[in-house]
């Protein structure tokens, strides 16, 4: 390799590595701090690595606040909402794609308009409605208002429209009704996009902060992102960052796991959305 090319190869990789280190640093810091002793956290100059991994911090984070309860709430919220929203998208997307109905496309257009309504403007009235229903600080209040789907409906409709008509015709001749066609024909042919939607949905709901913050007002109903904040205050007047970082790591764990297992899907999802938009 000519020296000039070698230099630019080094330059390229050097820059990219530097960027990766800069972006990845907060994760590194979070992990290493989660394994430090409180003395190490407050030592100056700051030690980059703990001497010995202090796994006790994780136990501390779990027990100092009702971490198990927060996790349960997050699982219920994320699980039901992701599946529910997807189901809405599936049924609605299929119906708009493959069923005939007078004024169907106009109805769909109207539905799309809701896409333009930013969540911000619905916050207060939703809260007032929850208050009248007595649903504040309940699972129903957390989940039901968020259950409707436009994004999934839109994507799945597009996808279902692209499926070959003859497969459905064959099924109909065999005596399959619409429900069967939807579940046994359309759905299996949509595994990739379905997986993407489910993953994106799960991540978004796991990370939700503002909505659960508004709906819940007691600790036993809060989800992880909110509960995690309690850890910072519960650790005394001088925050125990090691315990807080351990808590943060636990909150991110499921996300990292899904992400590593299905990273291509996430990247695809992002790209699909962008290029279609």
């Amino acid at each position, binding site marked *: 390799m000519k020296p000039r090319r070698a230099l630019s190869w080094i330059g390229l990789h050097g820059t990219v590595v530097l960027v990766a280190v800069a972006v990845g640093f907060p994760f590194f810091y979070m992990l290493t701090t989660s394994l430090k002793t409180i003395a190490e956290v407050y030592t100056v100059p700051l030690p980059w690595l703990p001497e010995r991994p202090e796994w006790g911090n994780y136990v501390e984070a779990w027990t100092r606040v009702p971490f198990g309860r927060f996790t349960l709430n997050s699982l219920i919220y994320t699980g039901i909402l992701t599946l529910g929203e997807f189901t809405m998208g599936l049924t609605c997307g299929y119906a708009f794609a493959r069923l005939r109905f007078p004024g169907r496309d106009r109805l769909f257009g109207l539905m799309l308009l809701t896409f333009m309504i930013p969540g911000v403007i619905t916050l207060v009235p939703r809260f007032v409605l929850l208050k009248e229903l*007595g649903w504040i*600080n*309940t699972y129903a209040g957390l989940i039901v208002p968020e259950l409707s789907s436009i994004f999934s409906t839109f994507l799945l409709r597009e996808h279902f429209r692209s499926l070959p008509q003859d497969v459905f015709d064959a099924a109909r001749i065999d005596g399959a009704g619409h429900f069967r066609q939807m579940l046994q024909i359309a759905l299996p042919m949509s595994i990739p996009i379905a997986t993407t939607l489910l993953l994106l949905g799960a991540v978004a709901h796991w990370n939700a902060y503002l909505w659960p913050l508004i709906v819940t007002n007691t600790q036993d109903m809060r989800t992880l992102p909110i509960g995690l904040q309690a850890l910072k205050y519960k650790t005394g007047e001088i925050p125990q960052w090691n315990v807080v970082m351990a808590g943060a790591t636990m909150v991110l764990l499921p996300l990292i796991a899904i992400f590593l297992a299905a990273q291509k899907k996430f990247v695809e999802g992002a790209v699909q959305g962008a290029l279609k938009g």
Partner: protein
Amino acid sequence: MSNTRKVSRRTFLGRIAGAAGAGALGAWTPRPARAQGRVNVVWWRSLSGRTGDAYDEVAKRFNESQNRVTVQVEFQGDYGALRDKFAAAVVAGGSALPDLVMLADVIFPAFARNNILEPLDDLAKGSAGVDLKDYFGVLQRGVVGGKLYQFPLGVSTPILYYNQEAVRAAGLNGPPKTWDDLFNVYLPKLTKKEGGKTSMYGFAFLAFVDWWWQQSYMWMNGGGISDDKWNVYFDSPQVLDFLTRFQKAFQAGQAYIPTKAEGSPVAYFGSGKAALMVESTGVIGRLTEVVGNRFTAAVAYLPEGPKGRMVPTGGNGISIVAGRSPEKRQAAWELIRFSQQPQQVVRVSEMTGYLPYTKAAGAAMADLLAKEPNRKVALDQMAWSRPQSSIQTVPRAVDVYFDALQQVLQGGGDPKKLMAQVQKQVQTILVEDGYKK
């Protein structure tokens, strides 16, 4: 649009939805266990550490002293956090509300005015009442619109804490006697710098959410921030003088407000990072816990001003939430009555630094006060106490002028310009919220 019609239709729908599965899971929130045969009342309180423990003890003693009522105490964070949680419960309604609530002296009036708290006059005067004449005048604090809504629990004034060794080492003889002393002599001498960064501050600021002790400075210089007719004076010379002086001290690195991440001023002072601190007398009981063996913490009167010495009262009290069933209301009252007994007041005083507020309690504590000089100073300072400015009870206004304080001290903002703005904003708020026409 009729509000009541909407409510009943929606509650009806809500019940249907509630019964239909989603609600079955949804409407469930865990409820506290009920003690057998006794009336259960829930009491929300503030105050952490030893100060809070004192009230847990009062509740425990109450539960053990009789078998009709069980009080369940729930800690809800500091005054601000408790206020938020209580407001949220008021909005959510129903079983979310506690029966009893401890609110700061300037926070409860806004709730009382909106009929969220229960008037206590008839309970207090009834056959199972308390001797209202036994109080050191502090009962007036709990009156809003002619009705009594709150009995005192913690009564305090702001006081000066100082690091005896640091003061001595700086060649100073005891604590500062006047504000001029503090600014001109003490702060420069007590502030220690190492390589451009302050290692010990002269003065750590009580980082509360309002201008509690700062009212003293204004009063002692012949001014104030508001009066009983809701006139406000944020653009007055005394306020500007106060802000300018403190701004200079902050910019010179002599004074400091610890951030939330760094811990409260008490912890800051206790770890030796500041030589002086103004805080509530209510933390006297926590001093040994926080300071340890690092140095000797002593207490002195707030510095005096040209117009003499004046300090605001502060602290918290206990109220009953409106809308309780007669049974719960009576049960809640029994706790309040118990808490006002001399033994309880004394015990709380012992564990904290809060002052005895009835004559009977004061008499019972005479020995302890004689033994502990810090507490004696705190009690003696009560002679110069007066109630807080009216504007302190308007939360939106308080947030405005507290933010302005931060802008002046930490942001180096122009006091005159900022206070002109604050004056206008607060006056608008008073009209918007119905205090003034």
